[in-house]
């Protein structure tokens, strides 16, 4: 029960976090590490397909490039992605503010 609710709660937040993190260019592995360093660990099997989906939706762009003698796929927020991220952040801030007000009564 808790696990499924937690998963539901995290799903939207993860998209927001990934989009925000990809304002700077990353490839899959470093993106995952960067998110984990910020305290938001994501499984590889969740993150990598999510990157593909966001790219298909036009929110990310990607390119293959060689780095440290290895071909890597680098992702970055697209123009559309930037606009969507701004809207999502506004929404997130609104929700966050409301939740703080609601939860304040419980303290």
């Amino acid at each position: 029960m808790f696990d499924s609710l937690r998963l539901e709660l995290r799903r939207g937040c993860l998209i927001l976090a990934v989009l925000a993190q990809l304002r700077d260019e990353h490839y899959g592995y470093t993106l995952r590490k960067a998110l984990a360093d910020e305290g938001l660990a994501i499984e590889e099997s969740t993150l990598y397909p999510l990157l593909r989906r966001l790219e298909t939706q036009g929110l990310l762009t990607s390119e293959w490039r060689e780095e440290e003698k290895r071909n890597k796929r680098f992702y970055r927020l697209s123009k559309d992605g930037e606009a969507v991220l701004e809207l999502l952040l506004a929404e997130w801030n609104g929700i966050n503010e409301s939740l703080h007000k609601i939860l304040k009564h419980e303290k």
Partner: protein
Amino acid sequence: MDLLERYLQAVGQYLPTETKDDTIAELRSNLMEQIDAREEELGRPLDFAEVATILKEHGKPEAVALRYLPQRSLIGPTVFPFYLLTLRRVLPIVVFWNFVARAVLFVVSRNESLTDALVGFALGIWPSLLIAAAVITAIFATIEWTRQRGKLPGNWNEWDPAKLPALKTHASPDCSPRSMTKRMIDLCAHCLWFAYVLWVPWHPFWIMGPGVFYMDSLNVALGPVWHTFYELLITLLVLQLAMKLLVFVAAARSWMPVMKLVTDLLGVFAMGLLAMATTYFVPDNAYADLHRIAVVNHSVNLAFRIVLVIVVAGMVKDGWDYAKTSKPMRQLAF
């Protein structure tokens, strides 16, 4: 790295051809990064078991591949409630028409016993239900497919509040106990009916009217089936009398559904007994018209078969009404 390539090959089996190479290349790159980082941490190359642990954590090949596929559903969340509603409306209708068809067959066929008819109905209903469910699923899958491609006009959430059904002002009779007067009238009526049933075997005119004289002219007597039926009827009436008395005891009202089911079953059994019998009237003496008796027996049998079907249908309806309010069925509601 042989294990990594085997893993990627296993994932690739489930990926679509057009994106397979690209996805595998990206997966390889990310997994090799992870392996490199681990090797750097340990200061030595990873052994087979350590690579296996990393791959195991990454996920089962089929599951990993499935996450790369576009999200698909046969019937999506917008259409699904309408699909469920249609199933809930149509499947009972399928059951009803199957029952009607079976009942007609049972009435017209003199060779089929009640048990055969019931078993035939219980077994024969499943293919019809499966076909109906499959057709409805196919229709809704098509609607979903069309809707997702934007080829279906109209908004599924469009509705008019003014068209909502009027508010029910009277509580359902099943929800509130009947008034004391009604219960008393019901009990008195039942006692009168019981007394009549006990009295009538010695006064057949009060059940058959002038038909008694016709029976006398036929020189017939009642068959043995009536004696068995009469005993069952008395048992049934005693049970019903107990029920009529129990409604005055609030604590005993919870037994009522069970008592009702028992009396319903007994009623069906009694009617089944009559419907299965073929001889209701037997010659009383040597002057009896055997042909006419056979015709009467046949007609009475046909009538009882029809009544049996009605009684069984009533019981099925009662069962359905009861099941509809049961917890598992309510959980299906949305």
